């Protein structure tokens, strides 16, 4: 369905020294450097999959999306979607895709929301009957009814995002690209949007590629993730396998009956662990112990803890994907994929 091979994008960037003097200098004698925004990325996406595209700010996520949607021309490499090359047969190609950039809108700012849909209907040559059906479906999924007659400029961010997603789906695209579709939204709206995406994916086998910084999006929606950093792919696989590979971190949390007795717990000595493998935090209400389950099993941790102190409450938390990704972002090492 989507084949991306050694996709690369370089930008020329003027080097400017600070201040007006620097600006003047570069105006008279410009110096350029080449910046590689996307560095030979390869991945495939089968039909009907929801792929999460994640990475820190400036990793090159949007640049990849822009190449896949025909907005940017790649410097080198290949991308093929539905057998079409985005920047070559652009006009034909974009009929089959839907695109939402969370930070921008494609709606007609000054007019009632409905007007946008009637224009898009003509642009995409959707016939009347299909349009009617489609609108009632989108209405059901995204709940547009209450604001469809309001001018777009008066919509709240959540309404606008739903309206934008509906606009991208009007022509029943086979592939949907969502660049940060939940940015700046509250929890309830995020949830609505996630459900809508899921429903559309299930009903119509729409392939979805989404970028996000919200890991809840990833956990709730994505079958697979591709993680990129500094333009390079650093991980490609199922979320479970990410947890498996990098998720040995567990968190033991308990409320001791007596804090003074609990203070006798010394995990480092007991299990001979280094600082990297264990981290204990006592906030006065509870004690949290983060540990590497490769080095010491959950069972041993539990039995040692309970042998020293009585507890009112205890639980062991799973690896938190957010933590894993933070670790990977920070360490920045190439961990292959």
């Amino acid at each position: 369905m989507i084949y991306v091979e050694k996709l690369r994008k370089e930008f020329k960037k003027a080097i400017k020294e600070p201040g007006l003097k620097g600006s003047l200098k570069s105006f008279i004698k410009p110096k350029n450097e080449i910046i590689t925004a996307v560095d030979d990325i390869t991945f495939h996406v089968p039909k009907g999959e929801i792929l999460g595209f994640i990475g820190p700010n400036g990793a090159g996520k949007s640049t990849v999306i822009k190449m896949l949607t025909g907005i940017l021309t790649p410097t080198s490499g290949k991308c093929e979607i539905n057998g079409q090359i985005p920047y070559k047969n652009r006009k034909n190609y974009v009929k089959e895709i839907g695109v939402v950039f969370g930070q921008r809108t494609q709606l007609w700012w000054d007019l009632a929301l409905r007007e946008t849909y009637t224009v898009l209907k003509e642009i995409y040559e959707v016939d009347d009957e299909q349009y009617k059906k489609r609108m009632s479906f989108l209405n059901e999924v995204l709940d547009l009814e209450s604001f469809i007659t309001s001018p777009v400029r008066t919509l709240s961010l959540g309404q606008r995002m739903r309206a934008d997603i509906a606009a991208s789906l009007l022509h029943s695209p086979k592939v949907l690209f969502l660049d940060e579709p939940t940015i700046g939204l509250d929890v309830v709206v995020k949830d609505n949007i996630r459900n809508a995406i899921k429903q559309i994916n299930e009903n119509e086998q729409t392939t979805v590629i989404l970028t996000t910084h919200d890991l809840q999006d990833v956990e709730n929606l994505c079958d697979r993730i591709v993680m990129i950093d500094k333009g390079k792919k650093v991980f490609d696989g199922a979320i479970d396998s990410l947890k498996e590979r990098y998720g040995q971190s567990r968190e033991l949390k308990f409320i001791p009956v007596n804090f003074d007795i609990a203070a006798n717990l010394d995990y480092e000595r007991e299990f001979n662990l280094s600082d990297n493998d264990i981290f204990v935090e006592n906030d006065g209400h509870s004690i949290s112990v983060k540990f590497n389950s490769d080095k010491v099993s959950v069972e041993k941790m539990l039995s040692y803890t309970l042998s020293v102190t009585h507890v009112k409450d205890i639980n062991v938390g799973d690896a938190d994907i957010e933590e894993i990704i933070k670790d990977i972002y920070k360490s920045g090492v190439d961990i292959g994929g």
Partner: protein
Amino acid sequence: MRIIKKIHRTFKLHRIFIKQDLKRLMEYKVDFLTGAVGMLLAQAINLFFLSVIFSQIPSLNGYTFEQIIFIYGFALLPKAIDHLFFDNLWSIGYFIIRKGDFDKYLTRPVSTLFAVTVEKFQVDAFGELIVGITFLCVSIPQIDISINFINILLFIIAVLFSTFIYTGIKLITSSIAFWTKRSGHVMYMFYMVNEFAKYPTTIYNKVVASIITYIIPFAFTAFFPASYFLVGGNPLFNIGGTIVMAAALMALGIFVWNKGVSAYESAGS
């Protein structure tokens, strides 16, 4: 058949977009009315100054007042038509590319140039159009022009292609923004040369005359075609020149535009 269908669709979309833009204008009533009053004022001031100038100077380099009014009126028509349909190119030069807003045109299944230009229907242009037509209607009965089928046809052709000289120049200069991110001032500089076109080219010195004939050929949007109707002359140069210049500028413009689209770098988000 396919071509006819395509043209039909283009016109249909065009109509829809114009309707949308008119609705947009109506949305902001105060702004619309103020704009309309301002436009009429601007043209009234133009008229006033012209009458002042010609109350002092009865003839200009052999051209009578009526003939000058004819050239002036002629000059306004292509300018107004370009203004009406292709005004959004200014936004390309000033901010659409710089802000990365060009993205949305690229995700629609229509030509980018079409999508950009149909988005704005600049009704301000009706001021120039009305004044231009008025000037022609006032001057024609007082000068010796034979109104026949050939002349009317040539007139329409001349106005149409003159329009494309304006559009072509704007297209080339606005496309520069694909590389430099902003080219509004370049556009403005080239565009303002059209002010020379309202008067006979023969009143200027050689340098200016050559520039507006061969380099930024605004002379072909008014003086050359208009003087064919006024004093005769070689239609191959006066009207043919307009057609050749328009075709060359539009071809170059579309070429540069397409090159620019593939060099487009968007903006970070």
